């Protein structure tokens, strides 16, 4: 067996005294589309923050392959972080820069490419997300869905090994959400990128997820990990079934 891409062991997340989730253990394999799911307020986004280096765990470890992410030196951690791309819920584009400048920023900072090469890459990445020709627009001139796609183009700028998505379909119409899902799958298939998605969009979960973890706000820990389809078929936990069926199984069971 190869080493998993990300391994989480005994992770406890807390804000001050308030424990959000405890004893999380799961692995994300190379090429997985990994779903972090659970009801509102269970700590999905906070778990993402622990994985991308924005919040230090109260306890436990996150490994990138064999490297301990939070025990590594600051320089080491920054080096790991450079291999990941993150699409934030709002897109988080730099509002004072144009789309081209947004995407060129990491390229200019971390590669030796000249301005001409960078411009080519920027056009290519924008074309990938369906925004060809929008180089000179400012983020505020775009719709929410376009901002999100531009954010994805920036996240992909350095060809990351792992892409993180925070609620990618939030605020998108069903068709755009579907297109984004397709884009995620084709990124995995063509580039072999490992993908981690925080979502509670059932359609997406079943359409793209190959592995997942289910967080529960009541017991403050994970209830299960594995492929969403398999969880639906095999899990005996009422909460998971209820979540994965929009609560409709309650009606079936009572009949």
């Amino acid at each position, binding site marked *: 067996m190869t080493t998993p891409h990300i391994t989480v062991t005994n992770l406890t997340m807390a804000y001050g005294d308030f424990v959000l989730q405890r004893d999380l253990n799961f692995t994300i394999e190379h090429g997985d589309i990994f779903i972090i799911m659970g009801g509102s307020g269970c700590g999905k986004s906070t778990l993402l923050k622990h994985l991308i*280096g924005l919040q230090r765990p109260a306890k436990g470890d996150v490994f990138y392959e064999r490297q301990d992410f939070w025990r590594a030196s600051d320089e080491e951690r920054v080096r790991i*972080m*450079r291999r990941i791309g*993150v699409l934030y819920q709002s897109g*988080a*584009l730099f509002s004072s820069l144009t789309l081209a400048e947004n995407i060129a*920023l990491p390229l200019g900072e971390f590669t030796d490419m000249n301005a001409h090469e960078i411009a080519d890459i920027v056009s290519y990445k924008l074309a990938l997300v369906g925004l060809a020709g929008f180089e000179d627009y400012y983020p505020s001139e775009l719709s929410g869905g376009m901002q999100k796609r531009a954010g994805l183009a920036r996240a992909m700028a350095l060809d990351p090994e792992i892409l993180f998505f925070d609620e990618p379909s939030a605020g998108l119409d069903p068709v755009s959400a579907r297109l984004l899902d397709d884009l995620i799958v084709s990124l995995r298939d063509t580039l072999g990128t490992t993908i981690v998605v925080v979502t509670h969009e059932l359609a997406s979960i079943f359409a793209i997820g190959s592995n997942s973890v289910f967080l529960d706000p009541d017991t403050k820990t994970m209830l299960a990990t594995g492929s969403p389809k398999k969880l639906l078929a095999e899990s005996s936990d009422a909460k998971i079934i209820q979540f994965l069926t929009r609560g409709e199984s309650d009606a079936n069971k009572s009949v």
Partner: protein
Amino acid sequence: MNTAGTASGQVSFIPVDESTVAMKLSGSWSNAASIRPVEQVLTELSAFKNLKLVLLQAHDLAGWDSRLPAYVLKIIDYCQTRHIEVDASGLPEGIQALLKLARAVPERAGARRTTQQKSTLAEIGKTVMNGLKDAKGLLAFIGETLLAFATLIRGKARFRSVDLFLCIQDAGPSALPIVTLISLLVGLILAFVGAVQLAMFGAQIYIADLVGLGTVREMGALMTAVIMSGRTGAAYAAQLGTMNVNSEIDALKTMGISPMEFLVLPRMLALILMMPLLCLYADLMGMLGGALVTVSAFDVSLIQYYNETQKAVDLTDFSIGLFKSLVFAVLIATAGCMRGMQCGRSASAVGDAATAAVVNSIVYIVVADSVITLICDRLGI
């Protein structure tokens, strides 16, 4: 009681048997109607002893909105705590459905925030803890800033030179009009204040000394600093705060770019480079203002004024003013950037950050000014 003629909702009790009472709701229950306070009705209800069942009935309602379900909900809550059953089947179906919906998710235990009377000691403790937290945040920010400057000196700091020039443009040339206006007027005021006294002794010529020294040693630097804290310090806090709200700072971090280098350094550098220049300009404008008053109203020629100023003000005085403005620049940039970086994630937090940046920098400026003036006085310069 209700005045006759206004549309009103009525509540009446009809005892059915020993343990049952029917509650009749009738009339209009809209927002405009006048209705007896629910507390009054509950008190009446508590007068029934051995009550086991309340029948809610509303067969001749004239109209209702949210007011009626809210009222009924209060009654149901009251009955539940006293183990009295409520039969709501006499209410219109719409209201029954709404009541069911309101009851579908029970109140989460511990969700309701109760305001407790805190002891004075606890309040004092909390204030002290908050103060300590603030002080810790300030220390951490200063430390990170110093590290960023160390990286800058080693030539490894990552920021775009375009950003630096934009910040310089914003903190320098764009501030000239307001600095001109304010320092000219302050020079004028100084001249007038001094002139009234000095003219009594026929010593109008010394207005030049007063204005020159006052502006160069003190007012030039101070007024520029106050303007810049309101203009640029607040802008820094608001810009960085908004970037924080929009996750832009998170995005920088996950890109492996230090926000301290990328965002804070160019802003601090711009202000530190521009403030002494602005201060020098404000000094000249202040003296010009003084000259305007003196020459036009107090029978002193421009040449005399110029000569007297040159005698009164020497390079040491200019250096003190410039040194002060440099210190003020650091303080304003620190307060502005720190409040922005520590900003919470809401629109109101951005406003708070901008306010705190201005208030902090003005306090820092005045305290630092007093300290420097005191030191200069002791050293005799």
